């Protein structure tokens, strides 16, 4: 009995590990077909991710962002809705953060201004995602269509703003002016200038909050019921549309953390398309993490390491590039998805 319970907890982690191993195996086999030494490829990725202090700092920075975008997918998933709009939500969050940072009065204390910038990013991202969530929850329009369309609109709107009205006067690029120096988050010194900042703490707190809400609160209980059986939720007196909407809103809001980390922690300004696909990468992060808070944090770290480590392939390997990382990520996700199917069909018998 006891062993059985421990196994039910460890099983998802075990299967996730197997998926990752299989992903690496397929990736290195492909590298071998391309004429590379598979062992060397793995070594390059690992040393690329953790070799220097700067590398380790970059991994922390990417982890910060991927926890946020992973939560953006995982939280709505708990209520049975699928948010694939993290990319757009991150852009809107980042844009709002940068604009507020540029226009806040200098007299404000830095800590307060930074908090306000974070809040602006979170609320704006939440509202943006809330559009798709609301259409799904209250009107029945599919959230996948809604959120993916909003991605295009977000890219368009933020791009238009930085090409025209808010473009920096001393830059040829589509980006805003630099935000005041006192609003930039301090980088940890030990990482040799890499943008690892206290934003990682914000992401971890968000993940912890997610756990507490789901496991310990009435709101979390309702989310669970709505996910498992909307009919039972209805009879129990829970409003299915409201639960779905707020889960979608909360998930989208997490993207604000990613946007703020990019603007305040790394770039110091908003740049066109600065989300760079990290919103989409949130989907495999959430899938590999099984939508669970701890899982999301661990898989965000793994994807961050893979993402940054693979960039070393451009220099160190001759026959493959960093794109191999995408292949590995995709293979990992396919294995994860295949296991979900497997466990469902087992449960049905």
């Amino acid at each position, binding site marked *: 009995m006891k062993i059985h319970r421990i196994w039910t907890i460890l099983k998802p982690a075990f299967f996730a590990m197997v998926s990752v191993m299989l992903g690496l195996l397929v990736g290195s086999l492909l590298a071998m077909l391309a004429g590379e030494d598979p062992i060397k490829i793995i070594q390059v990725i690992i040393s690329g991710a953790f070799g220097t202090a700067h590398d380790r700092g970059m991994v922390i920075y990417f982890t910060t962002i991927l926890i946020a975008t992973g939560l953006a997918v995982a939280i709505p998933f708990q209520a049975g809705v699928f948010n694939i709009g993290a990319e757009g939500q991150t852009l809107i969050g980042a844009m709002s953060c940068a604009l507020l940072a540029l226009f806040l009065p200098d007299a404000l204390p830095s800590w307060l201004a930074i908090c306000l910038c974070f809040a602006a990013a979170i609320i704006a991202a939440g509202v943006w995602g809330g559009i798709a969530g609301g259409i799904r929850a209250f009107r029945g329009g599919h959230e996948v269509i809604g959120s993916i369309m909003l991605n295009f609109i977000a890219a368009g709107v933020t791009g238009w703003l930085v090409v025209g009205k808010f473009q920096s006067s001393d830059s040829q690029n589509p980006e805003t002016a630099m935000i005041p120096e006192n609003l930039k988050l301090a980088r940890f010194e030990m990482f040799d200038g890499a943008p690892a900042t206290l934003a990682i703490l914000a992401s971890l707190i968000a993940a912890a909050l997610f756990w507490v809400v789901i496991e310990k609160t*009435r709101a979390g*209980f309702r989310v669970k*019921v709505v996910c*498992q*059986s909307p*009919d039972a939720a*209805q*009879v129990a*007196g829970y409003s299915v549309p409201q639960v779905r909407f707020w889960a979608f809103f909360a998930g989208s809001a997490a993207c604000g953390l990613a946007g703020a980390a990019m603007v305040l922690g790394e770039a110091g300004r908003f740049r066109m398309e600065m989300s760079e696909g990290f919103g989409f990468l949130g989907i495999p992060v959430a899938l590999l993490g099984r939508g669970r808070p701890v899982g999301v944090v661990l898989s965000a770290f793994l994807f961050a390491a893979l993402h940054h480590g693979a960039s070393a392939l451009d220099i160190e390997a001759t026959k493959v590039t960093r794109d191999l990382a995408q292949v590995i990520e995709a293979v990992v996700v396919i294995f994860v998805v295949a296991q979900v199917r497997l466990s469902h069909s087992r449960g049905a018998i």
Partner: protein
Amino acid sequence: MSSSLIEFSHVTKAYGALLANEDLCFRVSKGELHAIIGENGAGKSTSMKLLFGLESVTSGEIRFKGAPKKWNSPRGAMDAGLGMVHQHFMLSPVHTALDNVILGREFGHSKAKATRLLPSLGLIDRVTIRRDLESLSKSAGFNIPWDEKVENMPVGLQQQLEIAKLLYAGVDVMILDEPTAVLSPDETETFLQMMKNLNQQGRTIIIITHKLKEVKSIADHITVFRRGKSVASVPKQDVSIQDMADLMVGRHVNLGEIKRSANTPGESLLTVESLTLGRAGTKNKLSDISISVKEGQIVGLAGVEGSGQTDLFNTILDPRRFSKMTDGRQVINILGRDGDTLTASDIRRLPIGVVPADRLREAVLPDESLLENDLLGHDHEFASWAVLGGQWLDRRSAKGRLLNELKTFDVRPSDPDAKLGGFSGGNQQKFVMARELSRNPKLILCAQPTRGVDVGSIEQIHGELIARRDAGAGVLLISSQLDELMALSDIIHVMFEGRIVASFKRGEFDEGKIGVAMGGGGR
């Protein structure tokens, strides 16, 4: 001595450690009307799936015409002349009755393909198929409208269509799984007569059921299942209904009436007046419904499934939402509150116990523990940390309360961490009753309280409802089992097509009259 057509010889079917069938031994003779009876989960359906080739035998042997059966798929079973009507019909609702018969055998019998022109060209010969079906209808006594879409046909006719499909396929052994579960008393009568006819024409028929009266009226031979085993297989005349019930459960069951106190109904707990529900341009789901439930009263709603009982139930559960779909004339009063202002969440905070009809879909979360299921609809009772708006869920005190509840209502196993889906139907339902009734509700909304529940638990659940009534609670009871309604109710309203077409007081209950009203007659 008649030769045995089908013989189960020490048949066991295991799903992992679970034995769905164990050492089954019985014979079905040719030309026999054979009933298989047993409680839910006794392994009746599994045994027929084994016979039909949907599942494979773990050990033992099924013999057909004296030799071990050769097929391992439904297709093989059908080629051997067996046919099965499943509990849930396998019909395409958007196609006509005729096309549903054609589906899967587009070119008629295989011999027709060679000799007739249209099939040999790969075309569907509807005219010939239709002629064949009409002559078949005549001999079997069907009255199927061949050009009607299935979705517009009443359930009774849909069932005839399923049987017609088998006959058209040339089946001579018919297996029917719970065929009368969805039929009104009238339809049941017609159906039983039809089975007798088909049987007299020489077909062997196996019926799975738990309705003992029907068994007694038509079967030649009865096999009783209990916990996966065949505990008796006897000619009909050797057993009484009481014997069958006792054999099914394994102990003496009280089929008699439950004692109730002779109280007079008190104040009104629930009143619904002139409720009409529907959207413009469609048929009304409910028309001009007026009912009331008073203290110390059980009000039964009879009717064939889909006559509006569920719509009425759902409206009472979420009156404000449904008030948008009414004509505005209705007056709903629930425990002294104006119904039109109450949301679903408000309703669940009143002292109302709710037992919905579809247990696994509406009443519980099968994948969750008993504890989580106990919180369903009652999480507000365990709210703590007022600073957070009472959002914190105090599972510890919920667990303490649940342990008491399980003990009082004899739910087994009484382990708060056990997954609900692993419980038997009877214990699941006892758990739902425990959750709703242990809060001492004034008003109990209860639909199909004993569906899929074993005879022993039915006794307990009925006793509990009567006890609540005697103690002054009001109960609105929806059931498709007329016996249950007549045993429990003080008043029975009969619904048909969204209306109340007849009402009977206790003492005036007449199975025949209620049955006629359920079928829409006697208005």
